[in-house]
């Protein structure tokens, strides 16, 4: 029996191999559903919950949402806060850049009555305040919005340790993924714009799970992130969505339309 490699067979690209391995794992009975040992908070998007492999954001995780400016990271984070609130949680938004608009948060489904807005002086203080909040475990989910701020990695490791112990979830919005030792890392890439008539109402993004400490990474999900129409309108738009682009002229009333990004 020859040990020489069979060079006649074509080499399969790595992503394809990984997908095949995942598929094979599924066929062999590896449970891709929520892991029982790590309870999760919903992301607000069932497709992303499934792609994460844990049924949502794992509790106790420091999750980095990596997206370019305007790429939907804040929208996804606020939607996740709304979903956490819907499950009875209390949430916080740490906003050192003073960029949070309460009206936008409300339209994305966040109940402002139970939202704590923290305005630290700088990124370092934001991380420290997040650690204080995480240590008590009385906040179910918090968003640490460091987008556009100078890199600051000191304290994030300590924050991650505190989160694991308390079970709170921290969603980190930061441009440079290298500086965060996140337990979960999601990358968002815009795939299409969503319009109704001539109005731009959102974007279709592909969310890739780059890292997940508690489940197999590599999952992907396609998310429709609507700018500020709220969860109820979101549902209506979803009902109106068509699989293929639909010309507005041919419809009796404006329908959701997907335009290539």
């Amino acid at each position: 029996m020859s040990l020489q490699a069979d060079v006649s067979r074509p080499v399969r690209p790595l992503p394809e191999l990984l997908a095949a391995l995942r598929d094979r794992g599924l066929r062999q009975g590896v449970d891709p559903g929520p892991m029982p040992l790590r309870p999760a908070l919903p992301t607000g998007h069932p497709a992303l919950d499934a792609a994460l492999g844990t049924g949502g954001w794992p509790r106790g995780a420091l999750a980095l949402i990596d997206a370019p400016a305007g790429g939907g990271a804040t929208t996804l984070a606020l939607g996740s806060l709304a979903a956490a609130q819907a499950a009875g949680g209390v949430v916080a938004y740490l906003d050192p850049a003073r960029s949070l608009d309460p009206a936008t948060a409300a339209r994305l489904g966040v109940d402002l009555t139970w939202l704590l807005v923290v305005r630290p002086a700088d990124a370092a203080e934001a991380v420290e305040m997040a650690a204080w909040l995480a240590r008590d475990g009385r906040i179910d989910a918090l968003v640490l919005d460091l987008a556009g701020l100078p890199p600051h990695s000191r304290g994030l490791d300590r924050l991650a340790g505190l989160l694991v112990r308390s079970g709170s979830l921290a969603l980190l919005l930061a441009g440079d993924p290298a500086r965060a030792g996140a337990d979960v890392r999601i990358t968002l890439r815009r795939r299409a714009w969503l319009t109704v008539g001539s109005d731009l109402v959102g974007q279709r993004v592909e969310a890739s799970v780059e890292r997940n400490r508690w489940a197999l990474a590599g999952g992907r999900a396609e998310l429709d992130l609507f700018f500020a129409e709220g969860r109820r309108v979101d549902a209506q738009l979803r009902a109106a969505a068509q699989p293929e682009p639909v010309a507005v002229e041919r419809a009796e009333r404006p329908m959701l339309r997907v335009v290539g990004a």
Partner: protein
Amino acid sequence: MTRLLALVWPDLRAPDADRSAFEPMLDRLDDLSPRVEAVDVGVALVDITGLGALLGEERRVAARAVALTRGVASLTVRCGVGENRWLAALAARLAHHERPDAPAALRVLERGELAALPVDLLPADAATRQRFALFGLTAMGQLAALPRSAVGAQFGPVGERLQDLARGHDPRPLVPRQRPERLGRRIAFDPPLDGVGATALALRRACAELCDRLRTRHLAPGRARLSLYLEDRAPLRVELAFPAPALEPDWIARLLIGRLEAAARNRRMEEEPRVTSIGLAFDRLSDPASRQLPAFEAQAGRWEELRWSLERLSARFGEGRLWRAVHDRPAASLADRRWRLMDIGP
């Protein structure tokens, strides 16, 4: 026969008066009688029935009440004694008119003395007073002597009530206030300690001791008051109202020390003060398990717990850090609401 003592402090009834002394004054009056009513800010009613056997004549009882309240603040006071609240209050008013410049004045008013007093002293509105004048009624005795049916026909129920007062009848009972429960601890230092910070250990020990005593009774304090008695200066006093009843001695002590140091800084003492004793008191005691709101809304309970964390966060990071969104027009539709952020820090 019921005897009531009305005490009126005119200085406390001024619109811009510092009214913080009123509550401690009522606490002192609790030592005189178990039935004390706070009628209004600066007006108290004390049931002194039967105190004559203990303290002597009514003048001495009133003097005792004044002496007790003077221990809190030395304010001008008017006292009136009568057999019901109308007579007692009117007596205090007459005492003010008779001796306007005296630091303390007392008047005892009996029912029979009312007849000679003018009707203007009755709590009537301007229109009723004008009608009294039209009918030639100038003294309370004239109004009291009229048949009740005639007064009712002319002046209605209001007139009948005024006639009752003119005859010296007032059915309104005294409603004694609920005596607030307090728990206190005082620790003296011999020799005195140098500096405010040196008291931290003793303060923590006092907090722990009081919290342990309350825990056994399933109670928690809603407010802490700390007095720091200094060797050669006026005492420093700070107060800390808790966001929710709490039994956390370490944090109570830390927050009190923080406020104390701020108070010392504001006083701008050049040298470290020498502390002779500290006095710690917990009040607003309540059962923390009796809070009902969390039963109706899940987040409410979580937020109550969170408020303590926020208090600590404010103490650590300073003001202007913690905000909460409120909307100006709650009844408006979602699109028309205007949100603004409100500072919820200390």
